[in-house]
């Protein structure tokens, strides 16, 4: 069995985290990476570039919108903003993720349900 030093996030995990970050505040790609890494206490090491295909997928699905502008540090940035349908999608994803997490926890610790 291959030694997995870094575990891959399940499909949709990155999009979910991006949407949650954008729900708190619109941001550009670099700020998103910073935000995700900091909030996860550096437990999640996201390859910075992998954000961009995810952002394009979100753009295509109209879950976010993007606009060029100037950041607070006077740089040219493309800021992403979550849309109403993005918020709805995020709610659904979070609840299905929590159900999945609960299921796995129950299998790993039988008889012990996690309170969320």
């Amino acid at each position: 069995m291959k030694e997995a030093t870094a575990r891959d996030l399940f499909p949709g995990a990155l999009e979910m985290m991006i949407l949650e970050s954008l729900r708190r505040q619109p941001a550009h790609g670099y700020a998103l990476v910073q935000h995700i890494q900091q909030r996860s206490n550096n437990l999640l090491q996201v390859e910075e570039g992998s954000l961009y295909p995810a952002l394009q997928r979100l753009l295509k699905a109209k879950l976010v919108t993007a606009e060029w502008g100037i950041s607070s540090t006077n740089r040219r940035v493309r800021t992403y903003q979550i849309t109403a349908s993005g918020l709805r999608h995020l709610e659904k994803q979070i609840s299905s993720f929590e159900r999945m997490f609960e299921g796995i926890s129950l299998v790993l610790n039988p008889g012990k349900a996690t309170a969320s």
Partner: protein
Amino acid sequence: MNWITDLFRRRKLYNGLSEEIRLHIEERTEQLINEGMSKMEAEQQARRAFGNRALLEERSREVWLWPTLESILADVRFSLRQMRRSPGFTIAAVLTLALAIGANAVVFAVLNALILRPLNVPHAESLYTVEHGAYKDWGFFVSRLSRSARSQPQLRWADSVHP
């Protein structure tokens, strides 16, 4: 039919992507320099942290490109599968279309040769037809001029054949 609008949106989004990635790597580089790295080290580290830039750019573009092509191909494959599964229906549909198209083609060819093409004489536009008033609507089929006191011959331009 969303793929049509996607095509136009896509070009706008593509153009920004390379620049966006470049700015990202620059911002990371600056951050590392502020943390005390040398410029060259910072650039290398920033690029490494970003990942395979060309590959990621390509994958970002594919988000727009492939699904439209794939969905069209999937539609074609699906319809071919359905056609193979009900051969009776396929034959009926194909025959109907063939008959309809063939009939239309024949009628148009005849009309084209007889009506729509100019006469094969010099100065065809200066030809006249003379039509008897009473037989005005039959002029196409009847080539007879009758002289009658009540007849009102009508002159018309002839630039095509009227038998």
